[in-house]
């Protein structure tokens, strides 16, 4: 597998796609940081302060999208150009090919995260205020986002290795990540809905009268709320939303769920790839 990893890394070095994604993450990191800085200047008279941690973990929101662009295109070339055959003909096992590609995808994804973080630190440290979180909280959030990026990589590797058509696997990954993000936005809205709704009415004398609060039908209760909460913590798109708006309360749990996704998708992908007929 070391040979396969070496070959993948050599191809990464010359891949325009890889460097393009890396630069995109650098620009996004710089862009978000500068945006917070300009907001701080614009609203200085209201005493608004921008902090580094407001943008430092936002790669958790972006990494799913950028990796969805990169992984199916990078590994899809092996099918479209037929180069995967060169690995199999000379005796590399399907498992080693799958795992080498997974490791390459995860390493690339971590490199994209690193590019974002570097840009944020390079601009944010001199321009923004410091970090409000403790070192332990920061470490947990960082760990969570990095494990999430690995989980995304595992899901996209699953698709890219099992779907021999590059365009189809790219569409599946990109549509998939946006569906997951929209699911995250929807579930977030449901979970943050108020439990009770208070209605106001205008009395005959023209005074505004506050009615008795009534239960909000949109507020999920009991088992429904537990299911929503589980999905919000479990699904990678929902985790992305939580890291993006800094609402992740339990990053360790999210990281554990990401590890489960990584393990299950890799196990299933490797098993299916072993039985796949290649052309």
């Amino acid at each position, binding site marked *: 597998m070391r040979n396969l990893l070496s*070959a993948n890394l050599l*191809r990464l070095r010359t891949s325009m796609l890889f460097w393009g994604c890396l630069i995109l993450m650098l620009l996004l990191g710089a862009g978000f940081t500068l945006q917070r800085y300009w907001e701080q200047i614009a609203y200085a008279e209201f005493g608004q302060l921008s902090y580094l941690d407001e943008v430092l973990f936002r790669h958790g929101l972006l990494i799913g999208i950028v990796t969805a662009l990169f992984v199916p295109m990078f590994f899809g070339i092996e099918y479209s*150009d037929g180069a*995967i*055959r060169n690995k*199999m*003909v000379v005796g590399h096992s399907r498992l080693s090919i799958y795992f080498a590609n997974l490791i390459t995808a995860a390493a690339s994804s971590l490199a994209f995260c690193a590019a974002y973080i570097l840009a944020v630190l390079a601009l944010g440290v001199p321009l923004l205020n410091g970090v409000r979180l403790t070192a332990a909280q920061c470490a947990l959030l960082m760990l969570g986002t990095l494990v999430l990026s690995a989980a995304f990589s595992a899901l996209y590797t699953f698709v890219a290795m099992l779907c021999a058509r590059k365009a189809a696997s790219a569409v599946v990954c990109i549509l998939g990540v946006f569906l997951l993000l929209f699911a995250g936005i929807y579930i977030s809205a449901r979970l943050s809905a108020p439990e009770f709704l208070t209605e106001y009415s205008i009395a005959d004398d023209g005074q505004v009268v506050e009615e008795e609060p009534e239960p909000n039908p949109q507020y999920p209760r009991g088992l429904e709320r537990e299911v929503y909460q589980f999905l919000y913590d479990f699904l990678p798109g929902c985790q992305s939303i939580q890291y993006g708006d800094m609402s992740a309360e339990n990053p360790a749990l999210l990281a554990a769920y990401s590890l489960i996704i990584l393990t299950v998708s890799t196990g299933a992908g490797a098993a299916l790839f072993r039985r796949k007929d290649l052309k």
Partner: protein
Amino acid sequence: MEYVLVTQGLSKHYKDFKALDGLTMHVPKGSIYGFVGRNGAGKTTLIRLICGLQAPTAGAYTLYGADSNQKDIANLRRRMGAVVETPSIYLDLTAEDNLKEQFRVLGVPSDDGIPDLLKLVGLEDTGKKKARNFSLGMKQRLGIAVALAGDPDFLVLDEPVNGLDPQGIIEIRELILKLNRERRITVLISSHILDELSKLATHYGFIDSGRIVKELSARELEAACRKCLRVEVTDTRALARVLDQMGVDYKILDDGQADLYAQMNISQLSRALDGEGCELLSAQERDESLESYFVNLVGGDSHA
């Protein structure tokens, strides 16, 4: 005879379709084995199986004597190189980078062999040109160079001259002959272009409907396809006596027919037979090409 590849009852089914149906073939060491069959006969399926791209539904094969079900078959595949259907090359890389990539896949510690390999296939002057901009012949030669990166002694080429112009066909032919003669590489080559194959192959395997219908050496095929005069006579024993006296090479087919492998003077033959009390009933010149041999073998509905 020592064989590089032997398949035994190899079958591959895709749902109800039998792409290979108990195929048995023998590729001798050092040979150029021409694998001939019409479209859909199962040539590429067989190549996919022996390259490990697909698993057989039934049957097995041995590569250098090792059974395909054994674990060390993966190690033995390192002695193989293959170009299956289209050349397996990264189109966005140069020829040199493609070879570097394959050297990494193989774990070759140094890139020193790349210039020689490029020279061998005639791509030493391609420089920074991406494979995407290569002609079909250049891509095919680069595919062969990639297949040769591991210094294999068994090369599998699936339709290597398909779509090439005459110059490209000649280049690939000369390359294959060079590899076989100078490096002693055994070559399994499938091709539709039978005339071209006849200029290369030392052995042939004819496949139809997923089965090998005939395996023979080029010498045997040449004998079968030799230009001859087929004569019909009343007494083949008398014919044999006459031909022996004339010193003519012949083959008795049955009681009334024989093939004569020489330019014959019909009047002279007829007079000589008359002297032996035998009549010459008919004489027909026959010249069977590889193509007509193949068509006769598998039926003439469609061509290879």
